């Protein structure tokens, strides 16, 4: 099956920032992204867990975005404007996709 190299960016960020980040993604020209729930985690700001959160302020989400390599830099710049001042982690992986014209 014919595949093409692309990038998979995974962003873990606070739930209240989700809509801001996806707005930025929409504007940065990526063709899509997927939001996954997160149960809990640990980082510089300590350990947390989703269960029994009265407020959604403490929760996080993971956003996965697959995009063509040439779009990566523009996307990262856009994302960092939002992520910078917030709790969050960004990682980038090489991947292969089928139907490259979609990305």
């Amino acid at each position: 099956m014919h595949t093409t190299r692309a990038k998979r960016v995974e962003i873990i960020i606070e739930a209240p920032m989700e809509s801001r980040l996806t707005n930025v993604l929409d504007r940065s020209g990526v063709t899509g992204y997927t939001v996954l729930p997160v149960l809990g985690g640990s980082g510089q700001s300590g350990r947390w867990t989703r269960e029994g959160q009265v407020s959604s302020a403490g929760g996080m989400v993971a956003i996965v975005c697959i995009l063509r390599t040439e779009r990566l830099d523009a996307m990262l710049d856009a994302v960092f404007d939002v992520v910078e001042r917030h709790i969050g982690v960004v990682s980038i992986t090489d991947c292969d996709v089928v139907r490259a014209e979609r990305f």
Partner: protein
Amino acid sequence: MDTVLTLAADNLLSPLILFFALGVLAALARSDLTIPEAAAKTLSLYLLFAIGFKGGVSVSGHGVDGDLVASMLAGTVLSFSLPFVAFAMLRVTTGLSVVDAAAVAGHYGSISIVTFVAATSVLESAGIASEGYLVAVAAIMEAPAILSALWIAARFSADTGNPVDARDRQGLLREILLNGSIVLLIGSFLIGYITGEDGLVEIESFVVSPFKGVLCLFLLDMGLVAGRGLRSSAKHLRPGLIGFGLLMPVVGAGAGLLGASLVGLSVGGTLLLMTLSASASYIAVPAAMRVALPEANPSIYLTMSLGITFPFNLTVGIPLYLSVARAVGG
């Protein structure tokens, strides 16, 4: 004073408080007892739905008297101004940074609907009536404090150049005003007002009868969250902060008492406005602060609000405010 103690003792042994205490203890003991997130959210939607609806029905029964607008106004002023008081106190008594102090201050200007509900149920047990429209006042008091907090942070903080750009600022304002809990509370209030007693009869066995039981379950969850917060954020709880968390509600209640006297509320209404002013938000404001003041440390404001002030109001505060309201009003 005698009454305060009796009231407080009665209050302490009510299922509501005991389930809250159970939650705190379970969390401190690291039990794995948890309420699923979806259930906690649904319980909180139920409480907003029921309390808004019943408030609306009660207004439809007693009619809209002139005090409604005055009370709304009083609530708005209280919510706008209390963060300034809180900010000043925090800067004097604690070493919090400007941003952290502004964020905490925002929480104390806004309100906790569960504390309000607890006060309502104390009134019920004591057979004291209150103005139904205070539910609407509660809703209106949620938001203004957030704006004050942001203004304080922008005014007194040097480090944040232009934290939120214009587009986001507008979005933020819309988010604050159209916050889910405000919309549901106001919406249910209006529906209760429109459908009146007829509407209440239809859904009474959903919004009235099981209410207290649901509240017990919700308070169990709040206890669990508060306990977890206390455990993981104990290091932030310096004496100055604890002192603020216990003093500020009393100051807020005093301001609420003043407002209630000016408006001329009943004893029950006075207690409720005092309680609203004394209570600190832990749902709407934290979410707004994560977006608008991300530099502020969430552990501090959540622990203050949920771990110190909420249990204080629930156990000591409400009985205290009630005896003051009675002394002044009776």
